[in-house]
């Protein structure tokens, strides 16, 4: 259950952005979570809501966008998206691949309202 720490990092980033824009109010924080990031959507939402509840950040929302797995074949260099469980190269079927996406845990955007 490391989602609490991750939610706290998201909130801190939102606060940093709010501090850079005096007079604006954060409405929503957009986060990108890869299928292989080891982070669970529901647990992250739960943690985020638990941390903002009862504080002056209570109105903040967290929008999660999930990203698929992306791979590069070590043999032919082909880059392709795949399911979590079927990551062999569709072009040459060679076994060895490297992960080039799907482990994202990124802050995509902050949505603010000018007050």
């Amino acid at each position: 259950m490391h989602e609490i720490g991750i939610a706290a990092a998201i909130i801190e980033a939102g606060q940093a952005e709010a501090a850079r824009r005096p007079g604006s109010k954060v409405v929503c924080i957009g986060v990108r979570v890869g299928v292989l990031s080891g982070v669970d959507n529901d647990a992250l939402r739960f943690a985020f809501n638990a941390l903002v509840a009862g504080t002056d950040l209570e109105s903040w929302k967290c929008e999660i966008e999930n990203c698929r797995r992306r791979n590069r074949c070590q043999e032919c260099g082909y880059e392709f998206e795949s399911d979590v469980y079927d990551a062999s190269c569709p072009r040459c079927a060679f076994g060895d691949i490297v992960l080039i996406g799907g482990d994202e845990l990124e802050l995509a955007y902050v949505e603010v309202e000018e007050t």
Partner: protein
Amino acid sequence: MTVIPIEKKVLNENQRIAMSLRSRYAEHRVLCINLISSPGSGKTTLLEQTLALFRPEEKVAVLTGDLQTENDAKRLARYGFPVQQITTGGVCHLDATMIERALASWPLDQIDLLFIENVGNLVCPSSYDLGEAAKIVLLSVTEGEDKPLKYPSIFAKSELLVLTKIDLLPHVSFSMEQVRANARLVHPGMEILEVSSQTREGLNQWLSWITQHRQQMHERICAAHV
């Protein structure tokens, strides 16, 4: 409403420290490997057997993470190499700050090979870069063959799978063929080794893997300096 693009990693601070650790490892030619598994898969026992095989003059060190107790550090310290326990006080993984703090008291030029034994957990450690050259996942034959399917993140990110406790195979219904197939569904091309820390079967291959990675690291560093 205004949407402000941010585009940075949530664990930006962890990533920054991990990158700084990585460049320090490269500068001092330290091979750092991060051992990850469920609790009880045999990380500490494998490390004990591994340390027992190194000559006393080898510059090997271990950082071992647990929620509580110094038990693992006490076990590992018997082999005469520097060992430090990191107790996380409830945190389910090690992060780069904990490693940086632990290394503050150790001169890196006294270390060639650094083992990090992560907290027993197949989920959370997969999100935290510790600056390691490779993550290694351990899975014992007393666990299910479907662990790679249940915890795809750590199996996809680990370079090597070490199947442990193979001396128990006659007593458990565990299919080596199935676990290999499952691991390679999640990570095509994954390297897999089989070891028993009791009978020491497979330890030579494990040591060869480490030696090979130390050589590769030196070659990479030399190539970068040409």
